[in-house]
C-alpha cells in the first residue's frame, strides 16, 4: 500500500514540476477563469435582491466550465510521445497514476476556484448570512466530485473521436446529483435559510461511491487499446 502512495506522490510531483515549467496552461486557465466571472457579472444583475439566491448556482457553473477545460488537459502530456504506453507496460499499479492525476487536477481546480471566489464576492457584493465555514467542506467535496469523475472520463475519452467533446458529454449527466448538492448547499449557506448538512453528507456519499468505482475500474480503462 505504501508503495502505491509513494508512486502516486512521485507522479504528482512530476506533474506539478512539468506544469510549473510550462506556465502557459496555468496562465491561460487563470485568465479564462477571470473572463468567466466577468461575463457572468454582465449576464446577471449583481445588485438585484435575489442575487444571493442565484449566486450559488452561478459560482458552481463557472467552476464547472473551468474544471472541464482543465480536465481536458489531464492526459495530454501522456498522449504526446505515447508515454501512456510506457506506463501500461510497467508493473506500476494503474491506481497510482489515477490518484496522482486526480490530486493534480484537484489542486489545480481548487487554485482556480480560489482565484474566482474573491472575484465573485467583489462583483456580486456577496455577504454570507449562514455559517461561512461550511463553504469549505462544500467546496472541497464538490471539487473532488467533479475532479474524480472528470479524470476517469478524460481517460475514457482518450480512446474516442472528438475527445474534448466527449468529456463533458460523459461527465455532466453523472455529476448532476453532485452539482445539485454543491449549488443547493452553497445557496443554503449564503442565504442562511436552510441548514446545509444534508448536502454535505450527500457530497461525501457521492465522493465515496464514485472514488471507489473509479479505483475499481480505472485499470480496465487504462489497459483498453
Amino acid at each position: 500500500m505504501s508503495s502505491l502512495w509513494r508512486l502516486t506522490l512521485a507522479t504528482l510531483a512530476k506533474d506539478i514540476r512539468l506544469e510549473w515549467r510550462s506556465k502557459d496552461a496555468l496562465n491561460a486557465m487563470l485568465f479564462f477563469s477571470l473572463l468567466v466571472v466577468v461575463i457572468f457579472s454582465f449576464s446577471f444583475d449583481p445588485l438585484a435582491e435575489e442575487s444571493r439566491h442565484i449566486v450559488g448556482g452561478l459560482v458552481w457553473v463557472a467552476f464547472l466550465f473551468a474544471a472541464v477545460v482543465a480536465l481536458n488537459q489531464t492526459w495530454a502530456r501522456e498522449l504526446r510521445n505515447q508515454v501512456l504506453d510506457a506506463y501500461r507496460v510497467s508493473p506500476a499499479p494503474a491506481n497510482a497514476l489515477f490518484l496522482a492525476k486526480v490530486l493534480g487536477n484537484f489542486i489545480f481546480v481548487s487554485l482556480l476556484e480560489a482565484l474566482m471566489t474573491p472575484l465573485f464576492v467583489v462583483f456580486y457584493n456577496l455577504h454570507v448570512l449562514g455559517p461561512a465555514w461550511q463553504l469549505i467542506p462544500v467546496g472541497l467535496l464538490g471539487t473532488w466530485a467533479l475532479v474524480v469523475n472528470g479524470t476517469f472520463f478524460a481517460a475514457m475519452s482518450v480512446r474516442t473521436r472528438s475527445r474534448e467533446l466527449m468529456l463533458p458529454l460523459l461527465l455532466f449527466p453523472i455529476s448532476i446529483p453532485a452539482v445539485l448538492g454543491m449549488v443547493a448547499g452553497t445557496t443554503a449557506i449564503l442565504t442562511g435559510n436552510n441548514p446545509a448538512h444534508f448536502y454535505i453528507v450527500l457530497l461525501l456519499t457521492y465522493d465515496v461511491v464514485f472514488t471507489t468505482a473509479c479505483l475499481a475500474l480505472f485499470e480496465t480503462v487504462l489497459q483498453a487499446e
Partner: protein
Amino acid sequence: MKRAFPILAVLTACLLIYAGYQALIVAPTDALQGDVYRIIYYHVPSAWTAFLLFFINFIASVQYLVRAKPSTKRAANWIALAIGIVGLVAPFIPVVAQQLPAGMRPSAIATTIVLIPAFYFAIGKWFPGQALDVLAVTSAEVGVVFCTVVLVTGPIWARPVWGIWWAPGDIRLTSTLVLWLIYVSYLMLRRFSHSAQTHMLAAALAVFGALDVPLVYFSIWFFRTQHPQPVIGGGGSIDPRMLQVLLLNWLAFLCFAFLVCWSRYRLERLHREVEEAQALESLNGVPQ
C-alpha cells in the same frame, strides 16, 4: 423462432389496440383532471418499461464486466445471491416492516428485490459472452426511446393540468431526465469510441450510471423538502379500475418493447456475424 415473430407481432398489435381502447374509452374519467388524465396510460407504462430496460442493461453490463476474471465473477454471484436472500427475508422482519412506506406490502417488496438476482442469473445463463454486450446495447437503445416518450408526455400532461411545463423539484420527472441523459451519453460513447474495448468502457459507464440514480433520487428528494415544489403526476391512491387499465397498458407496452428488442437484438447479432465473417475472410484470403 422466426415464425413466432409475426404471430407475436399480430398478438401485440391486437393487445395494443385493446389496451388503447380501454385507456381512451372504457376507463372512467378522472374527477379532478377530466379526460386529459388519460395520457397517464401512455406516460406511466412507458416509464416502467424504460426503467425495466435500463435495469436489464445494468445487469448485462455488470455481467460483462465481471466475466473477465473468474474471481470477480464468483464474487458478483455471491453478492447477487446475498441480495436475494436479504430481500426475501428482510421485509418480513417487524423492525424493517415498520419502516416501509404505507401501502406497500412486505411480500410486494420481497418479490421486487428477489427479481434482481433472478434477472442476474437468468441473463447470465441465456446470454453468454458477447451476447451480453448485444443485450446491453439493445436494451439501452430501446430504453432511451421509451424514456424519450416519458419526457415528452410528462410536460404535455403537466401543462394543462398543473399550469407548468416543468418543475425542477419533481422527483420522478427529474430522475427520469437524468437517467435519459446518462443513457444518451452511454450511446454516444459507444458511437464515438474507436477502442477495441469499447464494450468494456460502455459497461463501466453503465455501472456508473446505475450508482448515480439513487443519488439523484435522494438529492432531489431532500431538495424538495427544503423547497416545496408542485408534484406533477399526483400522488396518493388510484381507482382500481384505472389501475387495471394501467397494468393492461403496461403489459401491451412490454410486449411491444419485447418485439422491438428482439428485432434489434437479431439485427445486431447479424451485423456482428457479418463483420466476423468478413474478418475471417481477410484472415484466410488474399492479403489487403
